[in-house]
């Protein structure tokens, strides 16, 4: 079967506004998480967030967007899309063509404007320009119109694994002949809605998150977007190719709405399924970009599932210590980071780690290391037990 290649990438996160800036941030161990947010929340100054420096006005100016009612979530998505589309060299004719699909993921969508939604619903006589755009689909419907796309367009929401599933869905459209090129990814922006939700669950840390550390206190929320262009191997003759998407699997943990089962059945099944699809043995994975949120539950269960599958897990780390947890964007942002591991033949350090978890004793990569990287696994696990793993491999 035709291999699926990555031919373009775009990303914006708390550590940079482009793929190049993000790569430098990872290389230097930059932490983009700071106390305070421009959002008007009682937790500003109290909790750290992975916030993108550019405000909405700055983003609109960079993107030349003048339409009213465009949310921050949509602006971030457009920013990453523009980079990915230019990087892949997609032509205007290709974008217009019905064999180009667009699959985006988001969990917050227009709900980043929680207060505007509340006001519009309670004050119908005086609705804001954002009124039609509070749902998740509004982001990708804007992009569909912006690029005048005519192929399959979709929005996926499986909580924190949303954009890993968007990447899978796009790859499957290629393999099943329903598209010849796909633009896939995800976005989420910070919102009082998610800040309060995760805070009510007592899983936000008041310090920098420390994935896989014994004394980890929880996650930090972040924001960002990433998009990738995928094409079939046969269509990439002479084109720049970053890597292949060689395996993927979606499984459900079927255990609890907001925590993973003790032995990590969902994570195990997702990782194992992706390995099988890629036709790889467990010793052939050189690096894992772990889900690693920094919560008590996730990191221990993910460790246990990695030990179950690999016995001696390969080098791993979580880039959420750089960007914060970007929810529906994290799978796509970390897909870009996994591809950077392959392209640059290097692994990036986990931040804020001190001592391993007693029960599992796994230590993430702590220094930037040049090494041979042939296959990288990227994990994304979401509320509701939605677990997905992707495997990226060197194209050559």
């Amino acid at each position, binding site marked *: 079967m035709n291999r699926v290649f990555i031919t373009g990438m775009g990303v914006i996160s708390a550590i940079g506004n482009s793929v190049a800036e993000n790569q430098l941030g990872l290389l230097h161990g930059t932490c983009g998480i700071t106390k305070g947010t421009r959002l008007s929340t*009682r*937790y500003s100054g109290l909790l750290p967030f992975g916030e993108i420096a550019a405000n909405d006005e700055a983003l609109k100016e960079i993107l030349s967007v003048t339409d009213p009612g465009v949310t921050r979530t949509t602006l971030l998505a457009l920013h990453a899309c523009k980079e990915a589309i230019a990087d892949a060299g997609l032509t205007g004719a290709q974008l217009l063509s019905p064999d180009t699909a667009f699959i985006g993921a988001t*969990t917050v969508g227009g*709900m980043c404007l*929680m*207060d505007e*939604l*509340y006001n*519009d*619903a309670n004050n119908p006589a005086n*609705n804001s320009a954002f*009124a*039609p755009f*509070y*749902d*998740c*689909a509004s982001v*990708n*419907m804007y992009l*569909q*119109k912006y690029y005048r796309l*005519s192929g*399959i*367009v*979709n*929005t*996926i*929401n*499986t*909580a924190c694994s949303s954009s890993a599933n968007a990447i899978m*869905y796009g790859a*499957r459209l290629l*393999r*099943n002949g*329903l598209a010849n090129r796909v633009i896939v990814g995800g976005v989420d922006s910070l919102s*009082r*809605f998610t800040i*309060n*939700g*995760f*805070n*009510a*669950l007592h899983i936000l840390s008041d310090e920098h998150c420390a994935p896989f550390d014994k004394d980890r206190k929880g996650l930090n929320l972040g924001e960002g977007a990433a998009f990738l262009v995928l094409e079939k191997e046969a269509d990439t003759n002479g084109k720049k190719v970053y890597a292949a998407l060689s395996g993927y699997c*979606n*499984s*459900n*943990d*079927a*255990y*609890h*709405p*907001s925590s993973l089962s003790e032995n990590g*059945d*969902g994570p195990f*099944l997702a990782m194992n399924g992706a390995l099988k699809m890629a036709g790889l043995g467990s010793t052939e994975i050189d690096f894992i970009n772990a889900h690693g949120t920094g919560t008590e539950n996730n990191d221990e269960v993910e460790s246990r599932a990695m030990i179950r599958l690999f016995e001696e897990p390969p080098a791993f780390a979580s880039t959420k210590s750089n960007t914060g947890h970007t929810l529906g964007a994290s799978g796509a942002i970390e897909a870009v980071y996994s591809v950077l591991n392959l392209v640059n033949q290097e692994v990036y350090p986990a931040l804020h780690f001190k001592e391993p978890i007693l029960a599992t004793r796994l230590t993430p990569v702590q220094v930037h290391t040049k090494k041979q990287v042939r296959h990288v696994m990227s994990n994304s696990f*979401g*509320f*509701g*037990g*939605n677990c997905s793993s992707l495997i990226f491999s060197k194209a050559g």
Partner: protein
Amino acid sequence: MFFIHQTSCISPQETFSNVKMDLLHVSVHNKLLAIEPAYTGVAVGVLRRMGKASRIGMGTAMRLIQEGAAPDGLIIGTANGGMEESIRFLKQIIEYHEDMLAPGSFVQSTANAIATQLSMLTKNKGYNITHVHKGLAFENAVIDTAMLLMENPGNTYLLGGVDEIASYNYIIEHTAGWYKKEYTSNQDLYKRNSAGTIAGEGAAMFLVNNKKEQAIAELTALTTLHSTDKELISGQLKAFLKKNVPSGESINLFLTGENGDARDADLVASCESAFGNETTVARFKHMCGEYPTASAFALWLACYLPIDQPLPEHMLKKQGTTNKNRTVLIYNYHKNVQHSFMLVTKFK
């Protein structure tokens, strides 16, 4: 694409336990609310925590899972799943000034609550996904399911579309003119010459696989469009028919998502003009109301309608000369911009 073996539907009409097609429940205040059955097989505590979209999704799905084989995956389309719980949590944030919040509504507010609660209730560790692309959320769930069956030909999947009327969405969409300003009964939905429609909700589920034996129907083709250009849409309909209907054959039943919004009259008329006298034209939105995944209700209806019996009078727009409902083309659209065609061949 695939064969449909079992179906289940909770809607504003009698579609769940004892289906009564001739009876039409009347809308109240321009809304058609789904009639909930007494749910069985789920603990009261679990039920109490669920929003309505989760309950009706669970109720329709559990019937199929209890009656049939365990599916290999759960594929749900929903635009507003979890929305009412989101609103509940949002009100708490604002009214309690972000302090001392209970996380229950937040956990239930994610759109994937329907599919994932089903996986927990039935211990289903297979493929699990939630498509939320508004008026094409169910269509993307269909595409996903069709791909899964190309990849895993022996498997069986549970496919569904679910939405509820969320209070904030209703207010905002009403303000924007998507619902009728004047009192309108669903019985008179197509008689008014005014803008807007009436709101609705429902859940429809399907057990599907690649086996023709014993199947109720086959979904043979699907296409999706994003456009406000009625010429382009009717042109695409003709191309779809040319590609998917063998020459010399015709569609028995054209089932449209006409919703009483006078602004769409030209669009619907230009699509109807693609068919000759042999084709019956019928409508369904007076039964379920307008909601983003109403096409799932239409697919349930296409599966349920007997091949050799006349349609209920309230559905009929134009009786064709064929008098059969063997081949059904469903045309649905949402807010002018999202459109889909689904072609169904019935066996039962």
